[in-house]
């Protein structure tokens, strides 16, 4: 493909709606696409891999810019809150550390100042960083579309169920991610994010996030999500089954992490090979589980605070 990165040749109509209802109405049109931060869409427009008839900019919708700090009912932030703003939400770093790490690992400060987590999900790159952390945390997307009566119809979908393939989501035409909803931090829980790249700015070769909740010495609940090792972010169910209900120690964790190869389907691409990804994933999973486990023992983790 001829690579043009200077100008956008493709022509489209531009809309900057001032109400959510107007935006959702415009997005019903086949060929219409939502523009949030633009850090993925603008590249795709330049390279003609996106050819929308209409671009609907969401930057004037105040209801998509709201944030709710962590509380009894969890945390919530709107689709147009930039990654930099999300990093600064009170409690984000202390209570949802793996999401902070995943977001902070995205691009440089300029990218994070415009890019959004909702856009990261909607773009559905198998290598995206934030969905991995969101899945481990059990986060949900609140979606909205315009009903026949002109009112916004909402539904919630776990982030894990948002993806249907590389670059593909379950979003229907006219449907938009409105909010990301994180469950409240549970007692004695902790999470960790690990990512492998050549240099920090790069897109991940492989990534993993782990969330776990301890009851005494044993692991009561665990969720593992892996990125860049399949067409969509994948759950590490075999590893989860090997650790759930078990008393954790380094050896148990090491052995369980090896099982991640059963859960992932990596390919060889420009960034890495399938063999490398299979091997490095075992290390990343081990390190992430160890890190989450260690954190769950400390007093300043999210679990201790929530008690």
């Amino acid at each position, binding site marked *: 493909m001829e690579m043009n990165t200077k100008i956008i*040749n493709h022509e489209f*109509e531009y809309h*900057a709606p001032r109400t959510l209802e107007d935006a959702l109405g415009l997005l019903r049109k086949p060929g219409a696409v939502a523009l949030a931060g633009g*850090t993925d869409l*603008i590249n795709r427009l*330049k390279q003609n891999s996106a050819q929308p008839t209409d671009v609907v*900019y969401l930057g004037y919708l105040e209801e998509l810019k709201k944030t709710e700090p962590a509380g009894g009912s969890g945390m919530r932030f709107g689709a147009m809150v930039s990654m930099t703003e999300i990093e600064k939400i009170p409690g984000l770093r202390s209570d949802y550390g793996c999401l902070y790490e995943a977001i902070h690992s995205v691009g*440089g*400060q300029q990218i994070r100042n415009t890019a959004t987590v909702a856009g990261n999900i909607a773009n559905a790159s198998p290598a995206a960083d934030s969905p991995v952390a969101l899945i481990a945390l059990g986060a949900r997307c609140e979606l909205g579309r315009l009903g026949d009566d002109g009112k916004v119809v909402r539904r919630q979908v776990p982030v894990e169920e948002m993806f249907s393939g590389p670059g593909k989501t379950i979003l229907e035409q006219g449907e938009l991610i409105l909010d990301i909803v994180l469950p409240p931090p549970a007692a004695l829980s902790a999470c960790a994010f690990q990512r492998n790249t050549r240099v*920090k700015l790069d897109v991940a070769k492989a990534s993993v996030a782990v969330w776990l909740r301890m009851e005494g010495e044993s692991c009561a609940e665990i969720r593992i999500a892996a990125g860049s090792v399949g067409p969509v972010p994948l759950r590490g169910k075999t590893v989860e089954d090997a650790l759930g209900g078990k008393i954790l120690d380094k050896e148990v964790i090491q052995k369980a992490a090896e099982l991640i190869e059963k859960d992932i389907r990596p390919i060889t691409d420009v960034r890495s090979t399938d063999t490398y990804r299979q091997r490095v994933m075992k290390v990343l999973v081990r390190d992430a589980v160890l890190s989450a486990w260690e954190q769950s023992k400390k007093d300043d983790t999210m679990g201790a605070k929530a008690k």
Partner: protein
Amino acid sequence: MKKIPIQLTINGRKREILVRPNETLLNVLRDRFHLTAVKYGCGIGECGACTVLLDGVPVLSCQLLAATCDGHEVVTAEGLAPEGETDPMQDAFVEEGAVQCGFCTPGMVISATALVRENPDPSTEDIKDALRGNLCRCTGYENIIRAVKTGAKKIKSRKRET
């Protein structure tokens, strides 16, 4: 394709222009206002050479539609100091020899300026983190990091004086 009237404040001056929906902020700044400190490097958000301040926040002008900047304020490296003058961060880059070919310099200076506004006394790690979205093709990072530290000191001492 309908043209869109927008209002932009560019380096302190209010401008009213018509833009095409598919026009990037980068191309508006370079081609219409001849603000050539804003560089077209990679065009896909990897190199940081097109970095400008949008409402005080560093962003990549190659990845923004000009239309979405309607009503906002843009500052390029040309606008950091009054015409014909340089600002302390620019002086620091010159003094520390942090300019080789110079292509990345305006973007580096903008990112560094934004960093020092939030963090007046950045560590080497802070600087590496804030500048990781700006690539130097001459690989002159040592001097650039030193320049940001020197620039931060200059800005601090200037604030003390005033």
